[in-house]
């Protein structure tokens, strides 16, 4: 049986992968926009408190 020639094979799988990556990117962009909009509703003190909570949760001596 003749092997399929990769040069003449359909681009469909690659296009699917590209489409999936674009979809992930657009989801990430939408997520970032939601985070930004949420942050912009806070005053500076509240924004600093959110950052401090992040540090308190995720800090390790490697960050220090």
């Amino acid at each position, binding site marked *: 049986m003749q092997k399929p020639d990769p040069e003449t094979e359909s681009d469909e799988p690659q296009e699917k992968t590209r489409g999936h990556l674009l979809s992930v990117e657009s989801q990430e962009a939408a997520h970032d926009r939601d985070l*930004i909009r949420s942050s912009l509703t806070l005053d500076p*003190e509240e*924004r600093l408190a959110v950052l401090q909570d992040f540090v308190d949760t995720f800090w390790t001596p490697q960050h220090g």
Partner: protein
Amino acid sequence: MDEPRRPVRFRALLDALVDGGVDFVVVGGVAAVLEGAPISTFDLDIVYSLDPDNVDRLGRVLRDLEAVYVDPAGRSIHPGVEHLGRGGHHLLRTRSGRLDVLGSIGADQTFEVLLNRSHVRSIHGKTVRVLELEALIEIKEDVGRAKDKAVLALLRETLEQREVTE
């Protein structure tokens, strides 16, 4: 001897600097957060005035904070007024966590230059100068480090969203 490492306490560091009468502008990740960008950072970066009186005040605050240089060899080297007076970058560990004390950032952007590009913010009753988002973006574009590039898209999006909502 290696100093103990502690998570940063943003409010304690800002309070110490303000109460000590230090003239400074908050830059870096904390400035971005105060300006509305949802990013994370584990240290506080400031640019300070190189005026000799201010350097003296900064030196006193850093002594109170038990500041030492970040040193891979684990030595306890304290920042002296003489060193601080020369500008440059002083990457420090304090009893309230990591504090980077900078004579300038980007292309020779000193305290005096950044003053005109900063907002006054009230943080828990203390008046703090914070670098504006537009300036933060420009400086990160100029510097062009990989870690800055990663955060630039988020900063630009924040600026865009802020203009839409304001």
